[in-house]
């Protein structure tokens, strides 16, 4: 219970006028950047980092963290409303969220995203408050072989994400894997698939690909179909935005995704992007409403948002206690700590209690601020789906290009985004889902990294796996899920064909 005392001291610090003001400012700025289509946490923090350089340590970290989760949150708004995820982590939110928006349920999707983010953020913070040091040892026991097992297991998701045709899904995933290998090879530094084009040495930027495949593709599709607005459905009055049934239906998904998202987020290298895919897939398997996942299930939105928010909070565990930030955003936060002489490591909770607990306290408060800040806007945002699309489309293009450019200050990435917009449009015409591509792209670097490390540990072979029961367990689980998914797919093939025909007509 010592933690509670420390936490209440942290709350007291976080609630001083200055600290509260910086948390509020960070949430505001973060949300503002996040809701601009095409700008997510990575771009947001890159833009706003210099703003915090002038502050003293605690306000600076409070504000940076707030910008981070504010942008994370804002990103889901554009994912739902206009199918523009600002970051990989909200790709999955868009899957069901955008379908809901098209059906005139934008308000429900936005509200459930807000509530799920809040629930997940709070649950994850409670986990962080009580178990952070213990979780650091869990993260330690998950070495390269275990992580390799987990990644192989995750690859079985390609089967469930494939849509009606497995062949098309595998094709899409293979394309993602190929794209993920472009650039300097991480071991020998040899150029792969760069064809002498220097900017390709840096690899193909994930955010550029995601913007292209989703945002740009969406614009092209709407232009091709001559759509006048995203949804022509009449919007319900504000009190009908989120019905009690919808809230009740998604409650289980919120809790499960928060728990699983938090646990996965404590592991090395697990970003909200990867974790939201994993958790969504798991939720789809246990949900009573699993048939509607992918075509506008509110549980899907709840699971995606729960997962990515719980994971972002959990990412503080490896960053603070082990000094291994899973994402660029976390690396930025960690460099903030280091600049101020705060040393990440297992002792950070003992050595810098005032700092750590004030930041955690401010994150609880930030979560509330975000909910209060955003729920009233749901109605306003929801109206966006009825704005003439030619107007929205030009804004999407503008902000996507700005967002893509900002990540690496690279005009080449803007071109990449455009190319993937065209690829995404063609894939859509051929009815190939882009999700396996994104999954392949995010898993490939992780897979390669952990595979090489495992081989190094085994002195040039995979022999070390034999001594690692957890790794073997994950691998076995991966093959079993793949087998079951294939079996179910074969059994449901007839049904799928019907659905496909129905959708096509």
């Amino acid at each position, binding site marked *: 219970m010592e933690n509670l005392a420390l936490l209440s001291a942290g709350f007291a610090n976080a609630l001083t006028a200055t600290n509260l003001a910086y948390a509020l400012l960070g949430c505001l700025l973060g949300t503002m950047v996040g809701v601009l289509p095409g700008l997510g946490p990575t771009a947001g923090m*890159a833009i706003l980092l210099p703003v915090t350089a002038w502050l003293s340590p605690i306000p600076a970290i409070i504000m940076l963290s707030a910008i981070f989760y504010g942008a994370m949150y804002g990103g889901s708004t554009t994912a739902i409303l206009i199918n523009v995820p600002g970051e990989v982590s909200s790709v999955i939110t868009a899957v069901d969220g955008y379908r809901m928006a098209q059906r005139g349920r934008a308000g429900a999707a936005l509200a459930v995203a807000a509530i799920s983010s809040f629930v997940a953020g709070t649950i994850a913070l409670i986990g962080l408050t009580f178990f952070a040091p213990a979780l650091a040892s869990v993260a330690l026991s998950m070495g*390269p072989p275990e992580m390799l097992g987990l990644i192989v297991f995750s690859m079985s998701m390609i089967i469930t994400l494939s849509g009606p045709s497995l062949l098309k899904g595998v094709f899409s995933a293979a394309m993602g894997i190929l794209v993920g290998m472009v650039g300097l090879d991480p071991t020998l530094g040899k150029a792969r698939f760069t064809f002498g084009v220097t900017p390709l040495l840096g*690899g193909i930027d994930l955010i550029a690909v995601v913007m292209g495949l989703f945002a740009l593709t969406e614009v092209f599709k709407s232009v091709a179909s001559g759509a006048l607005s995203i949804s022509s459905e009449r919007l319900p009055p504000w009190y009908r935005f989120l019905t009690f049934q919808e809230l009740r239906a998604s409650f289980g998904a919120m809790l499960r995704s928060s728990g699983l998202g938090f646990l996965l987020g404590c592991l090395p290298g697990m970003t909200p992007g990867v974790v939201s895919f994993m958790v969504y897939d798991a939720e789809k398997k246990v949900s009573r409403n699993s048939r509607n996942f992918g075509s506008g299930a509110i549980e899907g939105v709840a699971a995606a948002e729960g997962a990515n928010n719980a994971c972002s909070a959990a990412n503080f565990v490896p960053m603070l206690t082990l*000094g291994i930030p899973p994402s660029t955003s976390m690396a930025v936060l960690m*460099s903030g700590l280091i600049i101020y002489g705060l040393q990440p490591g*297992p002792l950070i909770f003992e050595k810098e209690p005032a700092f750590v607990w004030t930041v955690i306290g401010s994150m609880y408060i930030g979560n509330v601020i975000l909910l209060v800040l955003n729920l009233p806007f749901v109605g306003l945002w929801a109206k966006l789906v009825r704005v003439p699309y030619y107007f929205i489309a030009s804004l999407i293009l503008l902000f996507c290009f700005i967002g893509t450019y900002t990540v*690496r200050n690279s005009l080449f990435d803007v071109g990449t985004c455009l190319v993937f917009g065209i690829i995404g449009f063609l894939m859509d015409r051929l009815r190939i889902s882009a999700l396996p591509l994104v999954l392949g792209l995010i898993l490939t670097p992780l897979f390669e990294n952990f595979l090489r*490390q495992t081989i190094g540990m085994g002195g040039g072979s995979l022999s070390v796996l034999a001594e690692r029961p957890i790794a073997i367990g994950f691998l076995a689980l991966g093959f079993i899920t793949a087998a079951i998914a294939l079996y179910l797919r074969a059994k449901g093939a007839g049904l799928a064909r019907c659905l496909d025909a129905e959708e096509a007509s």
Partner: protein
Amino acid sequence: MRRQFLLTALGMVLLASVSTPAAGQSEYPSRPIELVVPYATGGSTDILARILAKYVSEKKGIAFNVVNRPGGSGIIGVREVLNARPDGYTLLADTHGASTMIGAFNDPADVPFDWRNRTWIGMMDKDVILYLVKEDSPWKTLKDVAEYARQNPKKFRWGTTGRGGIAIPAMQQFFEASGIPADAVADTQVLFKSGGEGPVALAAGNIDFAAQQIPEALGLIQAKRIRALAVISDERLPLFPDVPTVAEAGYPMIDVAGWHGVSGPPGLPRNVVDYWVTLLKEANADPVFRDMLEQVRKVPVFLGPEELRAFAEKEYEKYLDVARKLGWRK
């Protein structure tokens, strides 16, 4: 061909230095300066660049922006600076990884520039390296490690960050000094993407030995999960008074350090170089700046343009030798 190129480059440098003074010597800087970091936000070079930016902006009141241009182990950002207009408004947050290592470790066919072809301005700090083992490892000295590695090369697991990381030459020098051929232990190398992963893998027992910079390892050393066997430095560090230097540990031949500094495109005018040399020299003497560097565990060092160039040249030879032994270069 090469000579011709160098002569032309030299000619251009001369021409530039003759023709620019007229363009307002006293006015530099008159608009915001961009300091390009060829790596992502959050890395060591990024941190140092931001510290410098903060110091310079506060001290001189000039707008000094850090711009990250990551990718290709620094190649993309460096290329951009080297191709920029040499007017002093685009500078490079330079480091071992962005200069000598690109030159020595990469296949020249993959690098679209000559690493030497830059205007060196100055070095501001050095980055000290530690050799580390797990806290409960039986090894007490570097000699113990060498002994084990010699006898069990196929079981000896050692970690470094990927190419461009300063740990690679540190490891290679250790093996060479211990009489262990590079290919004997090549299979048990475990590569990490970022600096923090090595110490974590040590603490978890996934690797046996690693070389790391201080900020990456300090947290786990303080928590008594990993232990430093030696430090690559001429003197013991105040931070670790009990950790012997490599010379004390019987390895006087090991000499590797990371560094950070400022460079510019080839042909930077004399007045710009002078402006920055004076500034870096002042900063080096300023306790405020020294504190900022020590806060992030770097050792403040000042080297001017000519000294830095000579230093880089020596480092390059060293790294090229490492790359050849590893079979990365012919």
